């Protein structure tokens, strides 16, 4: 496959994954709208798309999705939500990228997903504390750690299950 065609394929897949991430975020919002979930606690289904992007396509693709997601949050929920989404997303992607490079043979996507979900929550909480000008939100960290561990494991296991079916996308590397 020549370079030009390869780039085009990557671009297409990136756009598709970004759309999938947005759809999952939107679906998640509908799903959890009626639930009495504590602030910051959410399944993070779009994490599946981001982790897949990072693992199968590359870091730029994952970063692109994060920026698109932050833009979506900015448009639908305001500047603060956009900023929080961006901080959480960036930290999350950098964490999964580092882990994918590092201990790939020991951790499955489940472990990587847990770490990136936790990083996402820490990033958001850090950004929120920064905006508020105090460490007030730090008391919320234990809740978000547990939430990240639980939902990160769920989305990671989902990716472990579906990844074999998607292995033919490996040529994207």
């Amino acid at each position, binding site marked *: 496959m020549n370079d030009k065609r390869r780039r085009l394929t990557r671009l297409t897949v990136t756009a598709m994954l970004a759309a999938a991430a947005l759809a999952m975020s939107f679906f998640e919002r509908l799903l959890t709208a009626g639930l009495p979930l504590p602030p910051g606690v959410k399944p993070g289904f779009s994490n599946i798309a981001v982790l897949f992007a990072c693992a199968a396509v590359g870091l730029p693709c994952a970063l692109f999705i994060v920026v698109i997601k932050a833009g979506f949050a900015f448009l639908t929920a305001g500047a603060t939500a956009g900023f929080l989404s961006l901080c959480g997303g960036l930290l999350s992607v950098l964490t999964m990228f580092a882990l994918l490079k590092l201990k790939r043979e020991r951790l499955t996507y489940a*472990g990587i997903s*847990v770490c990136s979900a936790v990083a996402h929550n820490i990033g958001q909480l850090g950004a929120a504390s920064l905006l508020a000008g105090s460490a007030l*939100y730090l*008391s919320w*960290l234990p809740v978000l750690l547990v939430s990240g561990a639980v939902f990160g494991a769920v989305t990671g296991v989902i990716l472990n299950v579906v990844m074999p079916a998607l292995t033919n996308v490996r040529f994207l590397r």
Partner: protein
Amino acid sequence: MKDKLQKIVRPADLIVVAAVLAVAAVLWAVLAHLTGTTAQIVCDGEVIATIDLSAVKEAYDVTLDNGVTVRVEPGAICFAASDCANLLCIHAGKLTRAGQSAACLPNKTLIRITGRDRRGPDALTG
């Protein structure tokens, strides 16, 4: 079957989850310890008193309308006297940390220490 499961999760994944949960538990305990200073007295579902226990210098008793006596001490609160038959409330002893509570069910009275006091975050930054 076992092979399939190993593909879905590996020991390292479980260690990661356990480590995160352990950190959360330790953090929660530390934060609860740092911030557990506000006590509430609840009668018949209504909060009738909120006391900052860290500001209490000397122990004193509060006698409620229903005859229950609550003792307030620096950093602690407990039931001191009650006309109930089983005295479970008094046996509950002193409450000192966030999340703890004791109740006198016959008198519909509850004491508890609430977490996330406004002093907590300051204590952390300082």
